[in-house]
Structures are given as C-alpha cells and as structure tokens.
C-alpha cells in the first residue's frame, strides 16, 4: 500500500475551477431539460394525433434515440454539424444532444402519466358528454401532472449526472475541469473525488427532495 496523503491545500485551491465547471453543468442541465420537455411534448402530440407518415417517422426516431448511446450521439452531432455547415458552439451542441436524447424519455413519461389514468375516468367523462378539450384540460391533465412531475424531476437529476458526457466534446463542465486539473498536476485523487462528491451531494439531495414532495402530495385530500 503506497503512502497516500490527501492534499487539503491543493483540494482547496482547485475549488474555484471546479465551481466554474459546475456552473456550466447546471446551465447545460437547465437548457437541456427545457429542450427535452418541449420536444417530448411534440413527440407525444404527434403520437396522439396519429398524422399519417409523420407519426411513424417520429415513433421510429424516438426508438432510435433511446436505443443508441448518448456518447455516440454527441460525437455524431459534434462532428457532423461543421460538415453540414451548421456552426454551433460545443456547449450548444451538447445541450441539443442532451435535449434530444432525453426527449425520448420525456415522451415516455408523458405517455405513462396519461395512461396511468384509471379507465373509469375516461368512461365518466364520455358518459357525461364532456367536450374533448375539457376532458384533456380539466380531467386528464390535472391528474396526470401529479404522476408526471416527480418523474420529470428525476429525469433532470439524471441529466445533471450525464451532462458529464459533454466533457468528451470539449465542453469545460465539471468533469472536464476535474480531468483537466488532474492531467495538468498529475494528481487525480483530489479533483476527481471532489467532482464525484459534487455530483453526489447535489443529485442525492435533489432526489430526496423529490421523494419527500411525492409523499406529501400523495393523496388527494
């Protein structure tokens, strides 16, 4: 067992750089989430509307995105955009990649939220003769939201962690900063452990918050 000492001074000195990376991580998560929520809604609406020719393409696309690694999707976008004449920053490409990848899961969440509605609710709405718009807005949506919100929250947490993949396409987020510091100083223990700690503390706290909010809103009372 080689003698190893945790260098507190070193650890303390790299905090500002790590925080700079964390800032990008949070921004990427924020924008990526917004993209995923919006796109997921688009996929869901297209699926429900059953537009000939468009819907099957969208369904296949969603399946395709879910069935392939995010890393490869990011690489692909990062390298193909310049070839197509699209000039997006690495950060924007990363946000887009995250957003599209996760939109496939968001669409599933929306679908699960809607399909979790007991069939009796649909039957009551039908037999009362409620107009379709009212059924969606006043009956389905308010009930589905309660199921959907915690799931979306957990997804944001997942995206927060997986934003670390952006380090592979030159975005200087948290993991990239850690790797960078490690390679420059050839001391990886402190940077990578602290990176892990940042991810852990934030994601664990957020997950606990979501779980406790779930239980307090569990019953319609």
């Amino acid at each position, binding site marked *: *067992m080689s003698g190893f000492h945790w260098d507190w001074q070193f650890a303390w000195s790299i905090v500002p750089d790590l925080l700079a990376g964390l800032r990008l991580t949070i921004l990427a998560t924020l924008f990526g989430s917004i993209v995923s929520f919006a796109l997921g809604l688009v996929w869901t609406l297209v699926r429900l*509307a059953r537009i000939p020719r468009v819907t099957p393409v969208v369904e296949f696309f969603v399946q395709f995105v879910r069935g392939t690694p995010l890393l490869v999707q990011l690489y692909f976008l990062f390298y193909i955009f310049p070839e197509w004449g699209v000039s997006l920053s690495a950060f924007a490409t990363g946000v887009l990649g995250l957003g599209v990848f996760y939109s496939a899961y968001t669409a599933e969440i929306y679908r699960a939220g809607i399909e979790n509605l007991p069939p009796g609710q649909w039957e009551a709405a039908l037999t009362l003769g409620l107009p*379709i718009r009212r059924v969606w807005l006043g009956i389905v949506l308010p009930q589905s939201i309660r199921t959907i919100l915690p799931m979306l929250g957990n997804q944001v947490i997942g995206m927060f*962690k997986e934003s670390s993949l952006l380090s592979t396409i030159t975005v200087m987020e948290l993991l990239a900063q850690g790797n960078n510091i490690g390679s420059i100083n050839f001391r990886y223990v402190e940077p990578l452990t602290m990176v892990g700690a940042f991810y852990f503390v934030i994601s664990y706290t957020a997950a606990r918050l979501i779980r406790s909010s779930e239980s307090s809103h569990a019953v319609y009372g």
Partner: protein
Amino acid sequence: MNSAGSLWGYLPFLLMGIPVTLEITFLAMAVAIPVSVILAVSRNSRLAMLRWPAGFVIELFRGSSALVQLFWAFYVLPFFGINLPAMIAGVLVLGLNEGSYFSEVVRAGINAVSPGQREAAVTLGFSPLYRFFRITLPQALPIMIPPFGNALVTMLKFTALVSLVTIQDLSFRANLIGTSLGRSGPVFGLIIVIYFILALILARGAKLLEHHVNRQVGRDLARVTGATHSPVPEWALGGGV
C-alpha cells in the same frame, strides 16, 4: 469521395469492435445481476448491518454518472496502489453501477411475491436459502424480465463509455478511424446504426427470454405487472387535442 473509400478500408477494423462491445456488455451484465440480487436482498434484510452498507453502495453508484465512476476507477485507484487493467475496471464499474440501479427492480420483484408464500414456506420447514431460490425467485423472475431487457440495452449503451479509458470497443475504433481520416461524422453515423441494430437484437433476445420464463413459471403471473395501463381511448383522439 476519398474518405468514403478509406472508410471502406477501415471497415474490418471497425467491425472488430462489435465482439468487444458485446463481450463487455455481457461480462458487465454478469457482474450486475448477482450484485443487484445481493443488494436487493440486503436492503430487504432485517439486519441493519446489511441494510445500511447496501443502501450506501446503491446511493454511491447512483449519485454520479458511470463516466465519472469509470474515470475515478481508472485514474484515482492507481494512487491507492490498485492498478486495474482497463477491461476489469470497465466491467466492474459498469456492473456495479447497473447493478445498483437494477437492485431496485429486483426488490420490486421480490416484494411482489405475496408474503403468504414466504409464510407457507416457513411453516413447511424450508431453509431460507431454499425458500429464496425455489419459492421466491421463480415467482419474482417474470416480473423482472422486461426491465431486464431494458437494462441489457442500457448496458450496451454504457459500453461506449469504456472507449474513453482505452478499451478498443466500437466507439474507440470509430474515434481512431475518424482521426485517421480527418473526418469523423460519417463514421459515427455508421456506428450509431450498428449500435441500434445490436440493441434491437438484444431486445429481441430479452423478449424471447420473457416468453420462455413466462411459459416455465405459469403465464398468469404476467398479469401481476399490469398496473392501470389504459391507453387513450379512441373518442378522445378525434379531431385533435
């Protein structure tokens, strides 16, 4: 046009990444399965001495991305004198990571077996080990297979990450080829398609396994999994939202 020709030349090298990718997928899965079972049983245990460490491990691996964990295993462990070969580090990390997530599925499966089963087995004098493997597990299995199919595909996607710690899988080779050609876009486009095909094959295999297990254990168990799952009725779709 020039690079397309060269890409063709690199194809054999690229395709040799497929067995590597699949090998890691299955090896990591072989680690993940026992890990998930051990963690699940520990979490359900009445002994706090089993519950807490299991909970700790689960939260630890779920607290950051597999990539962070891979880098940590690859770059930090050597400083503690632990020099894992890349393959072992990759398989272990992916296995522990996926195992932690999958332990929740296993727990759900075990808990879905009605407590009456355990009670009957206890009163009949069966040992805990026998109870678990012959009574609980066979009934929990059908419930766990569909999520298992998902886990398998997820694992396949995870393997792409090991390319970043020098393992010569599909993504690693694509990266190399792209650098050699000076043009990476098409190569990655190609391997995305390859990954998708592999994922379809794995998903199909999992489906077959599901049918086989259902037939073995008694088909009506498949009904247990159906929570309220009511697709949107026809009338609500007419004329748009």
